């Protein structure tokens, strides 16, 4: 008997029992269901929720693969020094980097999916509804936005918190106010700040080696700039992503490829992505203007980040990843077209604002997106009200 039939038999056996949603989910995740509906007219369309989720995961795979190689590359380069004449296949895509990267990154993915799906199944069984697909994307995003050496039990605790408090208490997928992946990251950030920020956590083993003769630095570019120190990475390094950072967010190039996939398949809103970048660039320009006008002295602690050229703000830190993959979450983001412009713009704008002025942690993308998640319904409300008012006015003009 094939797996499909076995699952089907199990499904029939457990029908109307408590465990039914679990088997249902497995069955429909792997195969088309055996039964068809018998009544009513139906729209045949391929873009169901599972397809949407899988598209996002597909767009994230390049970032994950890059993250695996980059984990190894950053680790070995921090020990042996960065190669003088960098060649992609010799120094980056090699077996050593892959083994180390897989050894550190894959456990994050496994824990994220394992714990998250366990919570989802548990809630589906208790509540007696179908298992929802919402966690498929969240589970992929989470390992990409945490530092490489985060202890696995912390990740597990955060995932439980994020899924339960961030999503299930509101009624599950589609009802959440906040982006669950960012809720998980925010929880980690506030609960275990020593593992989520500073100059040690971004490169594998940098924490263990601190204070010994083998000490290595794991400082991100933003961290370096926040202390007004010179940056040792070139612009192309920043764009291609050969820099320290959270696991999967370093490569702007691959993020843009992911963005292209999402926009082409119409899974993500190009309005949010574009306006996010515009907002960030504008805030960067504003800060550059302040520096050019001489309103801020070089001794100021904000000078390093304020004088960074505005376009560089877009390729360092996780602004690109956040705007492309997190802000475009259709559930927690704005729904109206005009609202999307405002929502995306403010995310970019506030991200750079927090980035420059936050003394404790020079990255504000996740905080900015969470903040705008909260405001998204308000933005939508006023856009809709404005539209109603405009139409009422037109109606009055016509009838008058």
């Amino acid at each position, binding site marked *: 008997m094939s797996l499909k039939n076995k699952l089907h038999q199990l499904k029939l056996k457990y029908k109307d029992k408590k465990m039914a949603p679990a088997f249902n989910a497995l069955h429909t995740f792997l195969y088309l269901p055996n039964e068809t509906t018998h009544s009513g007219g139906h729209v045949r369309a391929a873009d169901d929720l599972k397809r949407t989720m899988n598209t996002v995961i597909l767009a994230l795979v390049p970032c994950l693969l890059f993250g695996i190689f980059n984990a190894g590359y950053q680790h070995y380069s921090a020990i042996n020094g960065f190669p003088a004449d960098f060649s992609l296949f010799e120094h980056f895509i090699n077996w050593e980097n892959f083994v180390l990267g897989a050894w550190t990154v894959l456990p994050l993915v496994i824990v994220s999916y394992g714990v998250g799906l366990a919570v989802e199944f548990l809630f589906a069984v208790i509540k007696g509804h179908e298992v929802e697909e919402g966690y498929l994307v969240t589970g992929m995003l989470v390992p990409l936005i945490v530092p490489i050496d985060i202890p696995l039990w912390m990740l597990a605790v955060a995932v439980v918190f994020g899924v339960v408090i961030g999503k299930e*208490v509101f009624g599950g997928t589609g009802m959440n106010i906040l982006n669950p992946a960012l809720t998980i990251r925010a929880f980690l950030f506030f609960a275990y700040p020593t593992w989520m920020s500073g100059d040690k956590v971004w490169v594998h083993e940098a924490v263990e080696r601190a204070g010994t003769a083998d000490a290595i630095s794991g400082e991100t570019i933003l961290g370096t700039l926040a202390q007004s120190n010179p940056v040792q990475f070139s612009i192309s390094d920043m764009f291609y992503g050969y820099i320290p950072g959270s696991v999967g967010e370093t490569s702007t190039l691959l993020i843009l490829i992911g963005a292209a996939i999402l926009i082409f398949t119409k899974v993500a809103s190009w309005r949010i992505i574009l306006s996010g970048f515009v907002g960030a660039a504008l805030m960067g320009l504003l800060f550059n203007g302040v520096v050019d006008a001489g309103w801020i002295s070089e001794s100021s602690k904000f000078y390093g980040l304020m004088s960074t050229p505005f376009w560089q703000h877009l390729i360092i830190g996780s602004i690109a990843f956040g705007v492309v993959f997190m802000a475009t979450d259709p559930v927690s983001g704005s729904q109206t077209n005009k609202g999307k412009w405002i929502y995306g713009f403010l995310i970019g704008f506030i991200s750079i604002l927090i980035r420059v002025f936050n003394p404790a942690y020079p990255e504000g993308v996740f905080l900015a997106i969470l903040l705008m998640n909260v405001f998204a319904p308000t933005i939508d409300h006023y856009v809709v009200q404005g539209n109603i008012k405009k139409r009422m006015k037109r109606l009055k003009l016509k009838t008058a």
Partner: protein
Amino acid sequence: MAEVTTEEVKVKEPKEPLFSKKNKKLLTDPLADNNPITIQVLGICSALAITAQLKPSIVMAISVVFVLGIGNVVISLMRNVIPSKIRIIVQLVVVAALVIIVDQVLKAFAYELSKQLSVFIGLIITNCIIMGRFEAFALGNGPWKSFLDGVGNAAGYGLLLIIVAFFRELLGSGTLFGFKVLGDPIEKTGLYAFGYENNGFMVLAPMALITVGIIIWVQRSKNKALIEDH
């Protein structure tokens, strides 16, 4: 008491024993099924502010029991002579007097704790539970009943405070009443030897709100009668 009212209260009261079923209910109801924090959602602000540790929470609970118990009796005794237009001012004077007594006692006998609680003892004056019970109960009931109601509500509030503080101190600082029950985080003993770390988020105010929320969730899923219909 004899000249209070000519209504049924006068006839009924002498018959009722001190701890009749009805009176007991006044005392025990607010502990669970009519808890001021989880059901009436009053007094949330102080529940967020001082529950990072157990010790201040317990002191706060005792203070509120004192203020609300005595305050309810005082208001109840005066209920027929307070002009209704200025009753809020009268209530405020009563609470303020009681709170100042508590504050001075704490300053005299537990100075460290009173420094730790800082303004929050003074802010008992604005605690919604107190004004709420004055308005809703003490103004319409006799002193003994009001006393029971006041103590009951304050105890329900205190109970919640202590539960929240227990989890927040245990998970946030790894201590209970200042004792390191989970081991020493610096010398890496106990749980910390296995890589456990304190959850810094528990010490921050948002987690108090979420803890209260989880308690409400658990309580309502245990007692379906508490779930409101829409």
